[in-house]
Protein backbone atom coordinates (compact mmCIF):
# COMPACT_ATOMS: atom_id res chain seq x y z
CA UNK A 1 0.00 0.00 0.00
CA UNK A 2 1.40 3.42 -0.88
CA UNK A 3 1.49 6.23 1.54
CA UNK A 4 -1.09 8.07 -0.58
CA UNK A 5 -3.56 5.19 -0.41
CA UNK A 6 -3.12 4.98 3.33
CA UNK A 7 -3.94 8.67 3.66
CA UNK A 8 -7.05 8.16 1.47
CA UNK A 9 -8.20 5.33 3.68
CA UNK A 10 -7.71 7.26 6.88
CA UNK A 11 -9.68 10.14 5.41
CA UNK A 12 -12.50 7.71 4.59
CA UNK A 13 -12.37 6.25 8.09
CA UNK A 14 -12.48 9.70 9.57
CA UNK A 15 -15.57 10.57 7.50
CA UNK A 16 -17.29 7.37 8.61
CA UNK A 17 -16.44 8.04 12.25
CA UNK A 18 -17.74 11.57 11.84
CA UNK A 19 -21.04 10.24 10.47
CA UNK A 20 -21.35 7.81 13.37
CA UNK A 21 -20.63 10.68 15.73
CA UNK A 22 -23.40 12.80 14.20
CA UNK A 23 -25.88 9.89 14.42
CA UNK A 24 -24.90 9.40 18.06
CA UNK A 25 -25.39 13.07 18.83
CA UNK A 26 -28.80 13.01 17.13
CA UNK A 27 -29.86 10.01 19.21
CA UNK A 28 -28.72 11.64 22.45
CA UNK A 29 -30.65 14.75 21.44
CA UNK A 30 -33.75 12.65 20.73
CA UNK A 31 -33.41 10.98 24.12
CA UNK A 32 -33.17 14.33 25.88
CA UNK A 33 -36.25 15.56 23.99
CA UNK A 34 -38.20 12.44 24.98
CA UNK A 35 -37.29 13.06 28.62
CA UNK A 36 -38.45 16.64 28.20
CA UNK A 37 -41.74 15.34 26.77
CA UNK A 38 -42.25 13.17 29.86
CA UNK A 39 -41.58 16.15 32.11
CA UNK A 40 -44.12 18.16 30.09
CA UNK A 41 -46.75 15.40 30.15
CA UNK A 42 -46.41 14.34 33.78
CA UNK A 43 -45.69 17.69 35.39
CA UNK A 44 -46.25 20.74 33.22
CA UNK A 45 -49.78 19.76 32.08
CA UNK A 46 -50.73 19.60 35.78
CA UNK A 47 -49.24 23.02 36.44
CA UNK A 48 -51.18 24.50 33.53
CA UNK A 49 -54.32 22.45 34.20
CA UNK A 50 -54.52 23.42 37.87
CA UNK A 51 -53.92 27.07 37.06
CA UNK A 52 -56.50 27.13 34.25
CA UNK A 53 -59.15 25.21 36.20
CA UNK A 54 -58.71 27.48 39.21
CA UNK A 55 -59.13 30.49 36.93
CA UNK A 56 -62.32 28.95 35.48
CA UNK A 57 -63.83 28.40 38.93
CA UNK A 58 -62.83 31.89 40.05
CA UNK A 59 -64.44 33.22 36.88
CA UNK A 60 -67.82 31.72 37.81
CA UNK A 61 -69.65 34.56 39.54
CA UNK A 62 -71.73 32.10 41.59
CA UNK A 63 -69.01 29.63 42.62
CA UNK A 64 -68.54 29.73 46.39
CA UNK A 65 -65.04 30.27 47.69
CA UNK A 66 -63.85 27.68 50.18
CA UNK A 67 -65.64 28.51 53.43
CA UNK A 68 -63.38 30.33 55.84
CA UNK A 69 -63.91 29.85 59.57
CA UNK A 70 -65.25 33.05 61.07
CA UNK A 71 -66.59 34.13 64.45
CA UNK A 72 -70.27 33.67 63.67
CA UNK A 73 -69.51 30.77 61.31
CA UNK A 74 -70.92 30.32 57.82
CA UNK A 75 -74.58 29.53 57.35
CA UNK A 76 -75.36 25.82 57.02
CA UNK A 77 -77.79 25.05 54.22
CA UNK A 78 -80.90 23.15 55.32
CA UNK A 79 -81.09 19.81 53.43
CA UNK A 80 -84.11 19.54 51.15
CA UNK A 81 -85.52 16.32 49.75
CA UNK A 82 -88.26 17.70 47.49
CA UNK A 83 -87.99 18.04 43.69
CA UNK A 84 -84.66 19.79 42.99
CA UNK A 85 -84.17 22.30 40.17
CA UNK A 86 -82.51 20.67 37.15
CA UNK A 87 -80.64 22.68 34.53
CA UNK A 88 -81.06 22.23 30.79
CA UNK A 89 -77.97 20.72 29.15
CA UNK A 90 -75.77 23.64 28.10
CA UNK A 91 -73.86 24.06 24.84
CA UNK A 92 -70.61 22.17 24.30
CA UNK A 93 -67.68 23.25 26.52
CA UNK A 94 -69.85 25.50 28.70
CA UNK A 95 -68.94 25.26 32.41
CA UNK A 96 -72.14 24.84 34.43
CA UNK A 97 -71.16 23.31 37.77
CA UNK A 98 -68.34 22.63 40.21
CA UNK A 99 -67.42 19.51 42.15
CA UNK A 100 -66.04 19.47 45.68
CA UNK A 101 -65.12 16.29 47.51
CA UNK A 102 -64.39 16.68 51.24
CA UNK A 103 -62.53 13.34 51.24
CA UNK A 104 -59.98 14.92 48.89
CA UNK A 105 -58.85 17.37 51.55
CA UNK A 106 -56.76 20.11 49.97
CA UNK A 107 -58.17 19.66 46.48
CA UNK A 108 -59.78 22.79 45.05
CA UNK A 109 -63.31 22.95 43.62
CA UNK A 110 -63.16 21.68 40.03
CA UNK A 111 -65.18 23.01 37.13
CA UNK A 112 -67.62 20.69 35.32
CA UNK A 113 -68.22 21.50 31.65
CA UNK A 114 -70.37 20.03 28.91
CA UNK A 115 -68.70 17.40 26.70
CA UNK A 116 -66.06 14.72 27.17
CA UNK A 117 -63.63 15.12 24.29
CA UNK A 118 -60.07 15.78 25.31
CA UNK A 119 -59.05 18.65 23.07
CA UNK A 120 -61.88 21.02 24.00
CA UNK A 121 -62.98 19.84 27.46
CA UNK A 122 -60.97 17.29 29.46
CA UNK A 123 -57.50 18.63 28.68
CA UNK A 124 -58.41 22.28 29.12
CA UNK A 125 -61.54 22.62 31.29
CA UNK A 126 -61.20 19.84 33.87
CA UNK A 127 -64.22 17.59 34.44
CA UNK A 128 -66.56 16.86 31.52
CA UNK A 129 -70.25 15.89 31.52
CA UNK A 130 -71.28 13.06 29.18
CA UNK A 131 -73.80 14.66 26.80
CA UNK A 132 -77.21 13.03 27.00
CA UNK A 133 -76.82 11.84 30.59
CA UNK A 134 -78.82 13.50 33.38
CA UNK A 135 -77.94 16.94 34.70
CA UNK A 136 -77.21 17.51 38.43
CA UNK A 137 -80.23 16.60 40.54
CA UNK A 138 -82.04 14.98 37.63
CA UNK A 139 -83.57 11.51 37.67
CA UNK A 140 -81.10 9.25 35.87
CA UNK A 141 -77.32 9.30 35.89
CA UNK A 142 -75.29 12.52 36.07
CA UNK A 143 -72.15 11.06 34.48
CA UNK A 144 -68.86 12.91 34.34
CA UNK A 145 -65.30 12.13 33.22
CA UNK A 146 -61.96 13.53 34.33
CA UNK A 147 -58.24 12.88 34.09
CA UNK A 148 -56.71 10.83 36.88
CA UNK A 149 -53.19 11.89 35.95
CA UNK A 150 -51.96 14.88 33.92
CA UNK A 151 -53.86 18.02 32.82
CA UNK A 152 -54.66 19.06 36.39
CA UNK A 153 -55.77 15.50 37.30
CA UNK A 154 -59.17 16.40 38.86
CA UNK A 155 -59.86 12.71 39.72
CA UNK A 156 -56.33 11.89 40.91
CA UNK A 157 -57.50 10.73 44.35
CA UNK A 158 -60.58 8.82 43.18
CA UNK A 159 -59.40 5.56 44.75
CA UNK A 160 -59.53 7.17 48.22
CA UNK A 161 -63.33 7.45 48.07
CA UNK A 162 -65.31 5.25 50.40
CA UNK A 163 -68.98 4.30 50.42
CA UNK A 164 -70.96 7.10 52.04
CA UNK A 165 -68.51 9.88 51.13
CA UNK A 166 -70.22 13.08 49.99
CA UNK A 167 -69.72 14.40 46.45
CA UNK A 168 -70.86 18.02 46.43
CA UNK A 169 -71.96 19.49 43.10
CA UNK A 170 -72.82 23.17 42.86
CA UNK A 171 -74.65 24.97 40.06
CA UNK A 172 -75.64 28.61 39.91
CA UNK A 173 -78.89 27.87 41.77
CA UNK A 174 -78.30 24.88 43.98
CA UNK A 175 -76.10 22.49 45.87
CA UNK A 176 -76.52 18.77 45.16
CA UNK A 177 -74.98 16.49 47.77
CA UNK A 178 -74.48 12.95 46.49
CA UNK A 179 -73.17 10.01 48.51
CA UNK A 180 -70.88 7.32 47.12
CA UNK A 181 -72.68 3.98 46.87
CA UNK A 182 -70.12 1.82 45.05
CA UNK A 183 -66.93 1.79 43.05
CA UNK A 184 -65.89 -0.59 40.31
CA UNK A 185 -63.18 -1.12 37.72
CA UNK A 186 -64.32 -1.85 34.18
CA UNK A 187 -62.97 -2.03 30.65
CA UNK A 188 -63.08 1.17 28.57
CA UNK A 189 -65.82 -0.23 26.32
CA UNK A 190 -68.17 -0.95 29.25
CA UNK A 191 -70.20 2.19 28.62
CA UNK A 192 -73.27 0.84 30.44
CA UNK A 193 -71.80 2.32 33.64
CA UNK A 194 -73.09 5.71 32.50
CA UNK A 195 -76.54 4.39 31.52
CA UNK A 196 -79.51 6.10 33.29
CA UNK A 197 -79.63 2.99 35.49
CA UNK A 198 -75.97 1.98 35.70
CA UNK A 199 -75.22 -1.48 34.27
CA UNK A 200 -78.84 -1.85 33.13
CA UNK A 201 -79.16 0.07 29.85
CA UNK A 202 -82.75 0.48 28.75
CA UNK A 203 -84.18 0.35 32.25
CA UNK A 204 -86.34 3.27 33.36
CA UNK A 205 -84.44 5.35 35.96
CA UNK A 206 -86.10 6.23 39.25
CA UNK A 207 -83.06 7.37 41.25
CA UNK A 208 -80.92 10.48 41.01
CA UNK A 209 -77.44 9.07 40.44
CA UNK A 210 -73.97 10.47 39.87
CA UNK A 211 -71.16 8.55 38.16
CA UNK A 212 -67.51 9.57 38.02
CA UNK A 213 -65.38 7.88 35.36
CA UNK A 214 -61.61 8.10 35.10
CA UNK A 215 -58.59 6.12 33.97
CA UNK A 216 -57.23 3.06 35.76
CA UNK A 217 -54.55 2.11 36.65
CA UNK A 218 -52.82 5.42 37.07
CA UNK A 219 -50.65 6.53 34.14
CA UNK A 220 -52.52 4.09 31.92
CA UNK A 221 -55.74 3.94 29.94
CA UNK A 222 -56.19 0.17 30.07
CA UNK A 223 -59.22 0.22 32.36
CA UNK A 224 -61.68 2.67 33.92
CA UNK A 225 -62.27 3.47 37.58
CA UNK A 226 -65.97 4.08 38.18
CA UNK A 227 -67.63 5.71 41.20
CA UNK A 228 -71.41 5.59 41.57
CA UNK A 229 -73.36 7.74 43.99
CA UNK A 230 -76.92 8.69 44.73
CA UNK A 231 -78.44 12.08 45.62
CA UNK A 232 -78.72 12.58 49.36
CA UNK A 233 -80.26 16.07 49.38
CA UNK A 234 -80.18 19.39 47.63
CA UNK A 235 -80.27 22.98 48.88
CA UNK A 236 -80.58 26.40 47.27
CA UNK A 237 -77.24 28.22 47.11
CA UNK A 238 -78.93 31.22 48.74
CA UNK A 239 -79.64 29.13 51.87
CA UNK A 240 -75.98 28.70 52.83
CA UNK A 241 -73.30 26.05 52.44
CA UNK A 242 -73.76 22.27 52.86
CA UNK A 243 -72.54 21.02 56.20
CA UNK A 244 -70.31 18.54 54.35
CA UNK A 245 -68.13 21.43 53.15
CA UNK A 246 -67.90 22.99 56.60
CA UNK A 247 -66.10 20.16 58.28
CA UNK A 248 -69.36 18.71 59.60
CA UNK A 249 -70.75 15.28 58.70
Amino acid at each position, binding site marked *: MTRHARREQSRGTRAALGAVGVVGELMITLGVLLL*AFLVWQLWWTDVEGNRDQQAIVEGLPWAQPAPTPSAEGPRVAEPRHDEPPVLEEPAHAVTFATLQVPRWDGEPARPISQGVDRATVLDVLGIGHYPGTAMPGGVGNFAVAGHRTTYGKPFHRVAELEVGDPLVVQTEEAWYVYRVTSTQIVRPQDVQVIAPVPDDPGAEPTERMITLTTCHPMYS*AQERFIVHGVLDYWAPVADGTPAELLGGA
Partner: protein
Amino acid sequence: MYAWLWRHLPGPTVVRVLILAVAALAVLAACFVWVFPAIAPYMPFSETTVGE
Protein backbone atom coordinates in the same frame (compact mmCIF):
# COMPACT_ATOMS: atom_id res chain seq x y z
CA MET B 1 -22.57 18.23 14.85
CA TYR B 2 -22.19 19.89 18.22
CA ALA B 3 -18.44 20.16 17.69
CA TRP B 4 -19.15 21.97 14.44
CA LEU B 5 -21.60 24.25 16.22
CA TRP B 6 -19.03 24.97 18.92
CA ARG B 7 -16.37 25.90 16.34
CA HIS B 8 -18.70 28.30 14.57
CA LEU B 9 -19.88 30.14 17.68
CA PRO B 10 -18.17 33.49 18.21
CA GLY B 11 -16.46 34.76 21.31
CA PRO B 12 -14.64 33.20 24.24
CA THR B 13 -15.76 30.02 25.97
CA VAL B 14 -17.99 31.81 28.50
CA VAL B 15 -19.92 33.57 25.76
CA ARG B 16 -20.32 30.34 23.78
CA VAL B 17 -21.63 28.48 26.80
CA LEU B 18 -24.11 31.30 27.46
CA ILE B 19 -25.31 31.30 23.86
CA LEU B 20 -25.82 27.53 23.94
CA ALA B 21 -27.67 27.69 27.26
CA VAL B 22 -30.05 30.35 25.94
CA ALA B 23 -30.56 28.37 22.72
CA ALA B 24 -31.30 25.15 24.65
CA LEU B 25 -33.82 26.98 26.84
CA ALA B 26 -35.49 28.46 23.75
CA VAL B 27 -35.78 25.02 22.15
CA LEU B 28 -37.23 23.58 25.36
CA ALA B 29 -39.72 26.44 25.71
CA ALA B 30 -40.84 26.01 22.10
CA CYS B 31 -41.32 22.29 22.73
CA PHE B 32 -43.43 22.91 25.87
CA VAL B 33 -45.58 25.57 24.28
CA TRP B 34 -46.09 24.28 20.74
CA VAL B 35 -44.46 20.96 19.89
CA PHE B 36 -45.50 18.71 22.79
CA PRO B 37 -49.17 19.79 22.89
CA ALA B 38 -49.30 19.17 19.14
CA ILE B 39 -47.84 15.65 19.25
CA ALA B 40 -49.45 14.50 22.51
CA PRO B 41 -52.72 13.31 20.86
CA TYR B 42 -50.69 10.95 18.65
CA MET B 43 -48.92 9.21 21.52
CA PRO B 44 -49.99 5.58 21.92
CA PHE B 45 -50.93 6.03 25.60
CA SER B 46 -53.38 8.83 24.83
CA GLU B 47 -56.20 6.57 23.53
CA THR B 48 -58.67 7.29 26.29
CA THR B 49 -62.04 7.56 24.59
CA VAL B 50 -64.20 4.86 23.05
CA GLY B 51 -66.90 5.47 20.49
CA GLU B 52 -70.43 5.03 21.76
